[in-house]
């Protein structure tokens, strides 16, 4: 039935799952006895166990403790200095606005119409990095890096609805739920997004909530309803881009 998809080792061999449960002390004594007996007569499984043990040792030598901070992706390393400088400039400009400046309405639930933005972005095209604004023209291949501001710790996600009506999760990447960010002004997020070839208007929604929320239901809702109304207790900041063919 699965002849086209071969297992790495024979049907009788121990799986990586069994080895990992063994390393974690999760196998009961009977399964340990069976596994040891199998190892006694199976060279490939002995080799596999040795390989997994070497890999474990290498990993723990390199990353011995639970991470407390997320490193930036290599992909976005080029953005660091330019965005930091530009974000610093934004902060400076915002600060000059006085008490009504940064974050003046940032804890007001609802969809932002006017007032300071919680969500902004930078665009990299070729080697040039510029600060973006809602309504801006962008091109396939442009890279966006988002910057968020929040007056208090918030759970944040960024979603997009592209010109074909497809909704995507831009931030956080690879997680099921929103990410909690500390209160901060003009904080560049760690990931950059490369725009694909779908042309037309692309709407970007920054969602800021007091508590954690699931991403996939929100993405499905956005795709179905083609807009995102702020969930209860949350604020949504919306940007619109116009993606046109590269000149």
């Amino acid at each position, binding site marked *: *039935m*699965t*002849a*086209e*998809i*071969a*297992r*790495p*080792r024979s*049907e009788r*061999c*121990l*799986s*990586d*799952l*069994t080895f*990992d*449960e063994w*390393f*974690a*002390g*999760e196998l009961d004594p009977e399964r340990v006895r069976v596994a040891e007996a199998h190892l006694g007569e199976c060279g*490939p*499984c002995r*080799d*596999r166990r*040795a*390989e*997994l043990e070497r*890999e*474990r040792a290498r*990993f*723990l030598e390199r*990353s011995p*403790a*639970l*991470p407390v901070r*997320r*490193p930036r*992706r*290599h*992909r976005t390393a080029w953005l660091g200095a330019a965005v930091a400088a530009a974000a610093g400039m934004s902060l400076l400009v915002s600060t000059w606005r006085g008490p009504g400046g940064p974050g003046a309405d940032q804890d007001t639930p609802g969809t932002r119409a006017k007032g300071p933005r919680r969500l902004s972005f930078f665009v990299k095209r070729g080697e040039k990095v510029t600060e973006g604004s809602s309504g801006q023209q962008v091109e396939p291949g442009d890279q966006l890096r988002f910057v968020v501001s929040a007056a208090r710790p918030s759970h944040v996600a960024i979603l997009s609805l592209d010109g074909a009506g*497809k909704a*995507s*999760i*831009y931030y*956080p*990447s*690879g*997680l*099921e*739920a929103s990410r*909690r960010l500390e209160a901060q002004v003009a904080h560049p997020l760690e990931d950059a*997004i*490369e*725009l*694909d070839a779908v042309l037309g208007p692309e709407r970007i929604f920054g969602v800021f909530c007091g508590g*954690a929320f699931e991403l996939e239901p929100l993405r499905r809702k956005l795709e179905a309803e083609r807009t995102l109304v702020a969930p209860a207790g949350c604020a949504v900041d919306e940007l619109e881009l116009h993606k046109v063919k590269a000149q």
Partner: protein
Amino acid sequence: MPRAESLESWYKLHAPAVFRRARRMLGSDVEAQEIVQDVFLSLHERPQQFSGKSSVTTFLYAVTTHACFTRLRNQKNRRRLMDERSEAETQTEAGGPSPELTLLARRALSELPEDVASALVYYALDGMSHEEIARVLDCSRRHVGDLLLRAAQFARKAEA
């Protein structure tokens, strides 16, 4: 529900496997390290994810596979990851899957429904039996057989 100290011990016991599997699925040390961070930080922020109904290892297998699936399904990430990956980046491990199977599993993760792609990953990359796959997916062995049949059809098409 992992407390801080048990989370630390979970990391030492399980992070190597999370990293190894994520690297195989995504083909990148950097991406795999991010998956490790995402998985454990998410567990720290929402410990109720682990209900205790399964072993920690099977729970983390499922979480890691899903995290890699999600990362490959994000169309922006997929384009970048698939563009950046090549056969040269598939590492041969002693007793591990072949580079061909690894590439097939990556394609499956980016193109097939999650349950079919996951079954393929567990069978072809992790070397799991139908019974073990049923345990991780929390379904019947018969359903695992159906999923692998669909995965085999995908493999045939990919080969053609």
